């Protein structure tokens, strides 16, 4: 890992019509459009879905990192995030983030440790730590049958 602080950059480009192109150095471009809730086509990544994706991606990768450092054995993790947008004091914003994590661990793995690591991943998520709205984590740990 490179020494901190890390720097990240993204460029968004738009003409008067059509998709917004989101670009980063060395990254494939992402076409983006407003979500259906704001009159968009619904078949593109929107600012809102990208935002929720950042939360889900960050949670999964943070867990992967923490589990690796703890030498914790696990099989798979599915993270379902729902963000709620509402208008508060005339400001439209995300007011809630529900994170539902389903972790599958091998038989014999420590279930309690699994839950602790999931909670730790939530606490140390780069993205949600950068927001005022804090996520609510619901975790399910499934143990593989031997």
């Amino acid at each position, binding site marked *: *890992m490179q020494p901190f602080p890390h720097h990240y950059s993204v460029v968004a480009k*738009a*003409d008067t019509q059509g998709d917004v192109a*989101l670009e980063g150095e060395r*990254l494939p471009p992402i076409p983006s459009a407003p979500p259906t809730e704001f009159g968009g086509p619904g078949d593109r990544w929107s*600012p809102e879905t990208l935002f929720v994706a950042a939360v889900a991606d960050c949670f999964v*990768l943070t867990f992967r990192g923490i589990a690796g450092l703890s030498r914790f054995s696990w099989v798979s993790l599915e993270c379902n995030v729902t963000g709620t947008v509402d208008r508060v004091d005339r400001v439209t*914003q995300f007011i809630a983030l529900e994170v539902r994590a389903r972790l599958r661990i091998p038989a014999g793995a420590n279930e309690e440790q699994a839950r602790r690591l999931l909670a730790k991943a939530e606490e140390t998520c*780069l993205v949600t730590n950068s*927001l005022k709205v804090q996520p609510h984590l619901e975790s399910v740990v499934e143990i593989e049958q031997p």
Partner: protein
Amino acid sequence: MLDTALAGRRDALNPAELLLAALSACMIKGIERVVPMLKFSLRGVEIRVHGVRQDVPPRMECIDYEIVVDTDEPDRRLELLHDNVKKYGTVFNTVAPGTDLKGVLVRATSHGS
């Protein structure tokens, strides 16, 4: 492609880049929404967003942006457009209270942005 590893893939977005992508798309969406209401004439927009991640606690220490608008509108109208971007962006309004989010809206030069 959203998958990344701690060691880092260089061809996939990481969470911080996804967040910056969401923020920049939000600002463009906001501009597209208010342009008809303001009767603001523009030919194109480009937004550059740069974030700095701190280690402990892990969070985005600051996010800077530059909105480059290709337009012939007067400067005061550029300020008005920027004010609207800051007021009505869903992701902008969610990120702003949690980190040091700041930036400028400028006119594209005649040679392009």
